[in-house]
């Protein structure tokens, strides 16, 4: 069944364009709406068995020889995420029906959205790491398409590209981690990898595996410093932001970290990286959120910060921390989803998302204001029993106080953690209040593009459902504890947390922490306009965005400069590179292998005529270099050719001598014919430097080739095959001219293709000259 659950959104995506094309009167969203609902109900129906510890799995073979399969596995953790994806997916689809006009390119929207939904389900249900990676990249691609939905806007394209580059960078490094992981454990199944956890931790690749996989998780979940893509992804339509950038995709990294926690959990490196980056992200994200003026940007930084908080809880690695992390995953999805939808409603009904232009909307949009109230106060963790955010935040404080480890390093940094947690939460409180009060209270502004009014009920329905969850879970947290949270915690930690969620813990330290947050947060919020200037010097000019832009543009410039520096377009230079490489590579090889030996055993005696001819050839060859006249150079070159044919005579190769004689004549004649067209030989003086370089390279090539020739003569390893040819030429080939018998009979195929080459060359010359002539006459 599971494979059909994953497949269903993809199939839906396939049919969306037909609905859009042929049924224009009805909003396309209505047709696809049932799918996530059905999926949600299906996953709900599995809840009973999963909470009893009966996990479902199903395998569809894909590339069995490489152990790459679509193997799906539903345990508590997958179930939690599947419920979030299908549930919020259904609400977002409903919301988008009212949010997006029928004139928009709805076919694109729903195709991308459903591909994303299927891919996300695939990520959380996959048990095979390669299947997981496949779906992981599909989420990156569909998210890229969704962010760039309004592709005629510059900012959308920039945001889409940025998120793509960063998440794919992480995705690829994650693939590297997976490959190492499956190499070390010898399996591609996550469950079997978990069973082989010791093997992974003891392996020499452990650090590499952990770093690569965490890089994937951190980029996807927008952890510092990879968080920069998320604020720019706010150019997407708001339903997309609500779905991808609050509830599902950004939690894929969280999911991955939680899923692989049984392998890595408990190691120092895991603790330091995950907790460290999580807390850093928590503080930085919440601090930066207060600076933003765009509603969605506030929410984006808020998401970053909340993800950091969840991540740091996973890093703590205690049983209670894991449980708190899972609880907060659920809570964050509910209140952040609703807040995004409210931000979308405000944008839709007032025409702006700029918080400086908004204010006093409470009376105009009472329902939205109520929804936002619950969302923001839950996010801030205000200690009232009907905010689910408070419950998980208090658990966060509690767990940050109880980090126990045998490692000295962990023990040393443990006291700082609660301080950072409180610090991040104070700013969380400030931006939550900032979001709510600056939008809904204060003076009404008149210059809004649209006259503000309450949104239609269809649009409000989805955030209402989510807020109901916020309140119900806040009031009765144990309602979801037994069926959802506990199985998920078991899936991550391995044993039941045995936790009863309660609002009141007595006068425990975490309560004082919460009260500190509220008190200091209130003070900071009320004095916001006095200390806001701080952003001018922190971060001030510092920004990870600048680094991204610098790297992004810098690499183009660097690549361009590098390419331009050696791809000069001058053939002279290219020949230079080739020869330098030849001399370098061959010379070094000759030197390293000690291949250069001289053996004088079987050298033939040299006669005077041979020396004479050789001398003449050498002189003629040298003369061609210094000739100032082209014709003269050709004729002198002819001397070399005829000298060669003489040498062939001396070395008793009559066929070669004859051929060389005629070919040399024909070549010289052709040169003379062609060179008639060329301009006078360029007598421009070259600079001394390049002449010396040319000379050095020419001489070294000559020396090298000579050395290779001597070395290859000196190290003959096998007896020559020539004896066979001489013996069998008459007997087998019926001829006494061994050369000719070899050419036409024994090695006839070579000759066949050589004459083919000649034919092609002739036709080529004919075509070149004739075509040029036709072009001229045209």
């Amino acid at each position, binding site marked *: 069944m599971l494979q059909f659950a994953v497949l269903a959104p993809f199939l839906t995506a396939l049919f969306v364009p037909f609905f859009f094309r042929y049924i224009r009167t009805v909003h396309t969203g209505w047709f696809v709406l049932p799918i996530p609902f059905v999926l949600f109900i299906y996953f709900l129906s599995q809840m009973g068995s999963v909470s009893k510890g009966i996990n479902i799995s199903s395998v569809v073979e894909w590339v069995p020889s490489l152990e790459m399969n679509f193997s799906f596995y539903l345990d508590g953790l997958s179930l939690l995420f599947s419920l979030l994806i299908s549930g919020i997916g259904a609400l977002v689809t409903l919301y988008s029906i009212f949010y997006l006009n029928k004139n928009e390119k709805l076919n694109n929207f729903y195709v991308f959205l459903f591909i994303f939904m299927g891919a996300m389900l695939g990520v959380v249900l996959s048990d095979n790491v390669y299947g997981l990676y496949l779906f992981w990249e599909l989420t990156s691609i569909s998210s890229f398409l969704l962010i760039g939905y309004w592709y005629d806007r510059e900012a959308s394209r920039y945001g889409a590209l940025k998120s793509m580059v960063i998440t794919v960078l992480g995705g690829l490094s994650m693939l590297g981690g997976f490959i190492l992981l499956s190499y070390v454990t010898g399996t591609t199944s996550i469950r079997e990898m978990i069973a082989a956890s010791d093997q992974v931790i003891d392996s020499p690749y452990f650090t590499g595996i952990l770093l690569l996989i965490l890089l994937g998780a951190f980029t996807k979940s927008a952890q510092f410093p990879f968080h920069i893509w998320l604020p720019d992804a706010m150019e997407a339509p708001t339903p997309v932001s609500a779905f991808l950038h609050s509830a599902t995709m950004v939690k894929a990294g969280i999911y991955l970290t939680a899923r692989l926690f049984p392998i890595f959990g408990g190691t120092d490196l895991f603790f330091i990286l995950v907790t460290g980056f999580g807390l850093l992200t928590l503080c930085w994200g919440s601090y930066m959120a207060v600076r933003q003026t765009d509603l969605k940007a506030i929410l984006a930084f808020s998401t970053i910060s909340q993800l950091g908080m969840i991540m740091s809880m996973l890093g703590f690695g205690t049983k209670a921390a894991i449980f708190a992390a899972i609880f907060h995953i659920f809570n964050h999805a509910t209140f952040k989803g609703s807040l995004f939808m409210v931000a979308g409603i405000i944008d839709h009904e007032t025409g702006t998302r700029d918080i400086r232009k908004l204010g006093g909307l409470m009376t105009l949009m009472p329902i939205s204001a109520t929804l936002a109230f619950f969302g923001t106060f839950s996010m801030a963790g205000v200690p009232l029993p009907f905010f689910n955010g408070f419950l998980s935040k208090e658990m966060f404080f509690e767990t940050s106080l109880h980090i126990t480890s045998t490692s000295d390093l962990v023990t040393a940094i443990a006291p700082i953690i609660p301080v950072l947690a409180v610090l991040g939460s104070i700013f969380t409180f400030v931006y939550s209040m900032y979001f709510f009060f600056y939008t809904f209270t204060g003076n009404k502004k008149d210059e809004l593009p649209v006259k503000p009014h309450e949104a239609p009920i269809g649009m409000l329905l989805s955030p209402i459902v989510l807020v109901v969850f916020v309140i119900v879970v806040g009031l009765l947290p144990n309602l979801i504890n037994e069926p959802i949270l506990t199985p998920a915690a078991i899936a991550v930690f391995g044993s039941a947390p045995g936790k009863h969620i309660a609002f009141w813990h007595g006068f425990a330290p975490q309560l004082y922490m919460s009260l500190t947050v509220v008190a200091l947060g209130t003070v900071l919020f009320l004095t916001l306009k006095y200390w806001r200037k701080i952003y001018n010097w922190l971060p001030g000019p510092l920004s990870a965005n600048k680094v991204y832009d610098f790297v992004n543009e810098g690499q183009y410039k660097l690549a361009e400069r590098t390419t331009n520096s050696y791809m000069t377009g001058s053939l002279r230079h290219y020949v230079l590179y080739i020869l330098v490489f030849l001399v370098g590579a061959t010379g070094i090889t000759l030197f390293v292998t000690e291949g250069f030996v001289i053996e004088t055993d079987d050298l033939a005696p040299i006669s005077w005529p041979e020396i004479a001819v050789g001398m003449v050839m050498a002189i003629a060859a040298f003369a061609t270099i210094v000739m100032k006249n082209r014709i003269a150079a050709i004729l002198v070159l002819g001397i070399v050719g005829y000298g060669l044919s003489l040498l062939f005579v001396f070395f008793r190769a*009559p*066929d070669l001598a*004859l*051929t060389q004689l*005629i*070919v040399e*004549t*024909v070549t010289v*004649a*052709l040169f003379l*014919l*062609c060179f*008639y*067209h060329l301009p006078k030989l360029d007598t421009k003086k070259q600079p001394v430097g390049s002449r010396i370089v040319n000379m050095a390279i020419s001489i070294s090539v000559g020396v090298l080739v000579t050395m290779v020739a001597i070395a290859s003569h000196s190290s003959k390893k096998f007896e020559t095959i020539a004896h066979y040819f001489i013996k069998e030429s008459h007997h087998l*080939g*019926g*001829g*006494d*001219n061994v*050369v*000719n*018998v070899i*050419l*036409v*009979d024994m090695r*006839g*195929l070579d*000759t*066949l293709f050589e*004459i*083919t080459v*000649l*034919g092609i*060359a*002739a*036709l080529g*010359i*004919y075509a070149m*000259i*004739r075509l040029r*002539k036709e072009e001229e006459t045209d």
Partner: protein
Amino acid sequence: MQSNDIILKTTSAIIVFVILAFSVNLFLSGHNAPGGGFIGGLMAAGAFILLYISFGLKTMNKVLKVNFRYFIGVGLMVAFLTGIGSFFFNQPFLSHTFGYFHLPLLGKTELATAMFFDLGVYLTVIGVTMTIILTIAEDRDEDFVEGSK
């Protein structure tokens, strides 16, 4: 332009046949003595070129209405079909055989299928050489005409 190069023309007319005969001799004797299709072909091309030099392109084009480009195709075809031929005797591509026959006038003569292959080489080489040289020469000729205008 009408120069008086009667000596050249007369000697060429005789020498061409000597060269052509030598070319055929090189070709035929290739199997047992230095020579063969390649050198023979080049030699024959040399003979034709001598004619072109002596009598000029225009005259030659009237007298020798041969398109040398066809030589390339025909030559390659002959060489290739020789190779195909060995398939009919269940032999690998380009297997050759030879035998001795009593021919009228020549007496006992060795005939080899390799000869057909060499004939292909011979024709191709003639075609290639002539095509290249004539194409370039004609090109140059027209440049002359254009230049004089």
